[in-house]
């Protein structure tokens, strides 16, 4: 890349410092990685267990996000819902809300004595807090907005007018959805799903607050990393590397959407 002719040196220096600030922790992690014993560390029971819980929780959450988020994005983009700005604010709130606050709110909503939770238990014998299902709920809560805003944005910019043309050609609304809207939306759905899944995989605060930190049930990779940091820093680094690899794997295919190409 060539240096822009009018870039002041001081701005370049600050930008370089910012880049270093972001890159440094990753470098430190790589530098501290116990490369020779990595495979053994990753085979340990608690690591395998946490990986299993994480995959189960995050993939289930991603599935729920897809099912709930697609109609939600469509309604936000295309339907004149009352108080739309308020609704959208509520939808993106979990993105900016401290996850611990989200977990606390979930506890008061879906806990055994919560607003809805007490009825779930009384009528359906369903208890969510401190269960794997509770971890899925926490992950879904924080991940859903990432999918919804990605897909909603795509729906806004990609052609209602194309759907109108399809209708004039004789396609009923379901056919328009199947043959025009969804096929054109698939890249955005993929990107949104990858982001939501990555967010679910990395979820910590809401999970520990709402679902606890129970090995084999709710202890996901981030919780196991935090736990290991106190007793076994090498294992914490190894677990961190797994999460780092997953994050990069999600980010790289979606880079055209989220990172400028130049």
């Amino acid at each position, binding site marked *: 890349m060539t240096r822009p002719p009018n870039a002041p040196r001081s701005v370049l220096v600050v930008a370089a410092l910012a880049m270093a600030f972001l890159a440094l922790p990753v470098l430190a992690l790589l530098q501290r990685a116990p490369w020779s014993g990595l495979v053994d560390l990753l085979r340990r029971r608690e690591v395998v267990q946490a990986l299993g819980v994480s995959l189960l929780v995050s993939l289930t959450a991603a599935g729920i996000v897809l099912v709930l988020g697609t109609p939600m994005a469509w309604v936000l983009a295309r339907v004149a819902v009352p108080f739309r700005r308020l609704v959208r604010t509520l939808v993106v709130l979990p993105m900016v809300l401290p996850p611990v606050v989200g977990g606390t709110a979930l506890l008061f909503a879906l806990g055994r004595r919560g607003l809805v939770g007490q009825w779930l238990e009384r009528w359906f014998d369903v208890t969510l807090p401190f269960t794997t299902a509770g971890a899925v709920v926490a992950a879904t809560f924080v991940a859903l907005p990432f999918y919804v805003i990605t897909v909603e944005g795509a729906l806004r910019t990609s052609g209602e007018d194309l759907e109108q*043309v399809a209708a004039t*050609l004789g396609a009923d609304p379901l056919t328009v959805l199947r043959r025009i809207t969804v096929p054109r939306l698939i890249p955005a759905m993929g990107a949104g799903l990858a982001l939501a899944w990555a967010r679910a995989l990395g979820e910590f605060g809401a999970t520990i607050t709402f679902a606890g930190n129970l090995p084999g049930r709710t202890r996901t990779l981030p919780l196991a990393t935090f736990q290991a940091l106190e007793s076994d820093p090498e294992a914490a680094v190894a677990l961190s590397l797994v999460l780092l690899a997953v994050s990069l794997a999600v980010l790289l295919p979606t880079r055209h959407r989220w990172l400028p190409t130049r």
Partner: protein
Amino acid sequence: MSTMPPSLEPDPGLDRESSREPVLKLDGTATVGDLVLRVALEVLPGELVAVVGPNGAGKTTLLRLLAGLVRLNDGRLDLGRRTVDDGSDRGFVPAHSRRIGWVPQDRLLFDHLTVAANVGFSPHSTPDRVDSLLTVLHLQDLADRRPNECSGGQAQRVAVARALATDPDLLLLDEPSTALDAGSRRRIHALLGNRDQRPATLLVTHDPAEAADLADRVLELTAGQIAGTPPL
């Protein structure tokens, strides 16, 4: 002439060619933003009516009204032998249940489908009809390409073919020849020039030569109303 009231049931295709009943009967008002469109208009089978007028006069809105993308506030719109809009929710027939071929100004081809799939998109199209339109509009060699691999003129011909593949009661063309190469323009004009083979057509154009070339009648629309019928 039949004294029966117009049927409310769809009856596509019945005596469409031979009937001298208007294919389109419109007398009503529609409001879109600041524009109030107030138009009375009839078009006979095979007739091509050019609609001219300044920008913002409501030409495109008129086409969208006929296509079912804009509703009447009051009045009545008959297409074929049925009423498709009488200003009420119950009387409104949505776009997909009308028999319309719409060529929008910016073409709006489906980028994720091939040229052939675009032309054959309509459930009313048949493979034979698609093939013959691809041939007549010289699009056979492009059949497997995507619209974004087509030139402007080719894309316009695809849009016209896609609209005609529906075997429409009424063809709506929104400035189909703007910025077209001479060859594409000639092919589209040749297809539309044959009164016996074309459907009733409304052609929005800024080009007086195109209007004179093709149209049986020219209507001038100004501020949402038909201002007159300028001489051809």
